[in-house]
């Protein structure tokens, strides 16, 4: 009897341990996936913040660059700089004379090399006629070779024997440098991975979030105030509440469909612009803000309300002068979290055409633009190897923004908590 009892107890103990183990295992599984995800992104993305450059002695001969005085910015933008950059490269390899060979050698340079010369001239117009030392970007394949993403040998090799030899020579004489890639953070998109930047997408996202904030913040507060302070328990109130809960549950792609049909096709707002993107995002952010604001209005101590009423304030004055200011931190926290969600939304922006290939950085919310998550999508769909690190790096940037926004929300929340106590 006792022996079988012990057996039973041991069995139950093992079941207990097993059950506990399942719990730990699930948590570990979830967290390790998070870790793998973050590791994959960071390890494949950090290199995009650097790029490989080649040091060249470029002869700034105005005739060969087909520019003539006065050297205004417009005139300099018309110049042809390709041949001088190529000549500077050929000068490093005097024994490469064959045309075919030279063309293979020229593959080393990025189309950004001539732009680097142009930009240098625009900054230093008085250096025309001199020979200057410039660092110009190398093409994506060599950049990826330097970063060891592309193999030097094997079946899918993208370089000839000669090309590898030239590259090794340049590396040996110390003309190839590895520099911080500012253009990635400030520049617009490009067909060439080594020149592509997220500047335009960041500005586009900023404008979209600005529009989203300007619309959803006042509307959200107004709606929450009405529902908490003035609405009776009427049928209308219940319908409104049900609708707000529904909005929060509608898939984002449906908001995109609605934005396409109403804002673009009926109202005729300009396609692909952060303005329309922001309007659509604001409709999705609205429920979050309303729910957060209602919660923080409800948390305002009744003493404040009664004191204000006792001093002769009207109900509207009580709300606007006393309740809302006290509830503001909670509202702001909810708003920031809502905006952080909006920053990561991709599907509705695809629907309203923010997927166009746009090089220029938008100057106003009415200019066509992409947004950060859409840029990630566009680069992720690109076949070129060079865009993989760019995609990961863009993800690092968007995650950095998300972390910053959430930290801000946490700080606001903890600050007000100490204040009330």
């Amino acid at each position, binding site marked *: 009897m006792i022996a079988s009892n012990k057996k039973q107890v041991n069995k*139950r103990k093992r*079941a*207990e341990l*097993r*059950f*506990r183990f399942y*719990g730990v295992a*699930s*948590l570990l*599984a*979830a*967290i390790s*996936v*998070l870790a793998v*995800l973050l590791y*994959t*992104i960071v390890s494949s993305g950090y290199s995009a913040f650097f790029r490989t450059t080649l040091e060249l002695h470029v002869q700034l001969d105005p005739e060969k660059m087909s520019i003539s005085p006065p050297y205004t910015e417009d005139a300099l933008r018309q110049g042809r700089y390709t041949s001088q950059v190529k000549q500077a490269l050929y000068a490093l390899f005097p024994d490469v004379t064959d045309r075919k060979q030279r063309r293979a050698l020229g593959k080393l340079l990025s189309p950004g090399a001539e732009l680097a010369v142009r930009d240098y001239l625009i900054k230093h117009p008085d250096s025309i006629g001199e020979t200057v030392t410039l660092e110009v970007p190398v093409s994506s394949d060599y950049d990826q070779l330097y970063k060891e993403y592309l193999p030097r040998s094997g079946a899918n090799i993208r370089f000839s024997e000669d090309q590898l030899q030239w590259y090794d020579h340049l590396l040996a004489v110390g003309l190839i440098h590895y520099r911080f890639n500012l253009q990635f953070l400030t520049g617009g998109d490009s067909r060439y991975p080594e020149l592509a930047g997220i500047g335009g997408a960041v500005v586009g996202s900023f404008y979209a979030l600005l529009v989203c904030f300007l619309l959803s913040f006042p509307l959200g507060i107004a*709606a929450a*105030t*009405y529902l908490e302070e*003035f609405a009776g328990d009427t049928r209308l109130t219940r319908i*409104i509440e049900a*609708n707000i809960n*529904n*909005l929060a*549950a*509608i*898939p*984002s*792609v*449906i*908001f995109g*469909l*609605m934005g*396409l*049909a109403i804002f673009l096709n009926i109202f005729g707002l300009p396609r692909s612009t952060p303005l329309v993107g922001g309007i659509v995002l604001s*409709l999705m952010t*609205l*429920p979050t803000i*309303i729910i957060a604001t209602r919660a923080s209005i409800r948390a305002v101590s009744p003493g404040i309300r009664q004191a204000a009423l006792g001093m002769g304030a*009207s*109900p*509207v004055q009580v709300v606007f002068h006393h309740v809302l200011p006290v509830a503001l931190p909670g509202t702001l926290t909810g708003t920031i979290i809502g905006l952080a969600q909006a*920053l*990561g939304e991709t*599907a509705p922006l*695809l*629907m309203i*055409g923010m*997927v166009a290939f746009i090089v220029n950085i938008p100057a106003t919310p009415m200019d066509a633009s992409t947004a950060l*998550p*859409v840029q*990630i*999508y566009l680069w*992720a*769909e690109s076949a070129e190897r060079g865009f993989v690190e760019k995609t*990961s790096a863009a*993800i690092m940037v*968007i995650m950095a923004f*998300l972390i910053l926004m959430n930290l801000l929300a946490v700080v606001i929340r903890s600050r007000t908590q100490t204040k009330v106590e």
Partner: protein
Amino acid sequence: MQGLAGSLDSTTASPAFHYLEIRNIADGVLPDSHASVAVKEAVSRYTSLTHTTSIVLSIMFLLAGLLGFYRGYKSLSVDFPAREQVEKIVRFFLLASSTIAILVTLSIVLTLVIEALQFFKHVPLLDFLFGLKWSPQTAIRADQVGSSGAFGAIPLFAGTLLIACIAMLVAVPVGLFSAIYLSEYASPLVRAYVKPMLEILAGIPTVVYGFFAALTVAPFIVKASASIGLSASSESALAAGLVMGVMVIPFISSLSDDVINAVPASLRFGSLAMGATRSETIRKVILPAALPGIMGAILLAVSRAIGETMIVVMAAGLAANLTANPLESVTTVTAQIVTILVGDQAFDSPKTLSAFALGLTLFCVTLTLNFIALKIVRHYEERYD
């Protein structure tokens, strides 16, 4: 003006196109060098009309302003209840703001229904709901080969369901056990660190999950299945489903956590006092009590998975295969909506309109799921209040 219209009609393009051309030239977007005489005349007429409009508008605004000032000035007196008047307006504004939610829902429903009805003029409803073949490419020219356009949505529904099922197979056990461990076993310290980590999973943008699925998970599945002698597509349902499952974990875990914590302590103590172990208490007492709430959480997660777009756009394929094999490529409702509508589209073609029909279906399904889920959760909350 009559003659103008006549000469415009002589060309084959639509009036809307001419209007656009005229407006663009007048705004200076297009050069007028290629425009015909009629268009040039129309442009100058358009310019003068807009000019007149702006003058008339300014005068009207000025008058309205003056009128308002006059009214305000006249009602200025000692016993005029200005505050009440202002507050009435403020209250009206507040009410109007809160009805925005209704307006948005209405406009979503109306656009989806109207456009979907247009679609069902081209394709019968039953063919759409029960057709087995989906290939939305319609012929641009009548004599084109091989693009008749088939709009049977069953392959999409099946693909959506397959991916959502895989996601749930991942998310339900992991999310549920995480919630149980966090609420029943974990020390407050562990809870304080682990819970936010799970919440990070919910905060990661879906486009990031999509990239992760396509870049890391899909190649891994291809390799893994090749090593056991199976061939997986590079855009397999499994890759999209697994990653979507990870995305859904925090929904299930945090909702179940709330539900489990809401089970009255008396039930738990009663079971423990009878000598049950903790796991027995959880399995035999707490989970049965929390089951309706957990079902609600799972339904919410399913509706989330069905509506999820970016992961499937990036990691699942576009080929509408009707298959239950998770290693093959399938497509989903949301992926098709995006593919159809990204880029330029003719707005009245059945292909474009089919996206709205798909959207309407998606809207109805997710709304029903949410409705049921909320109903279950509410009912359950009432039981223990």
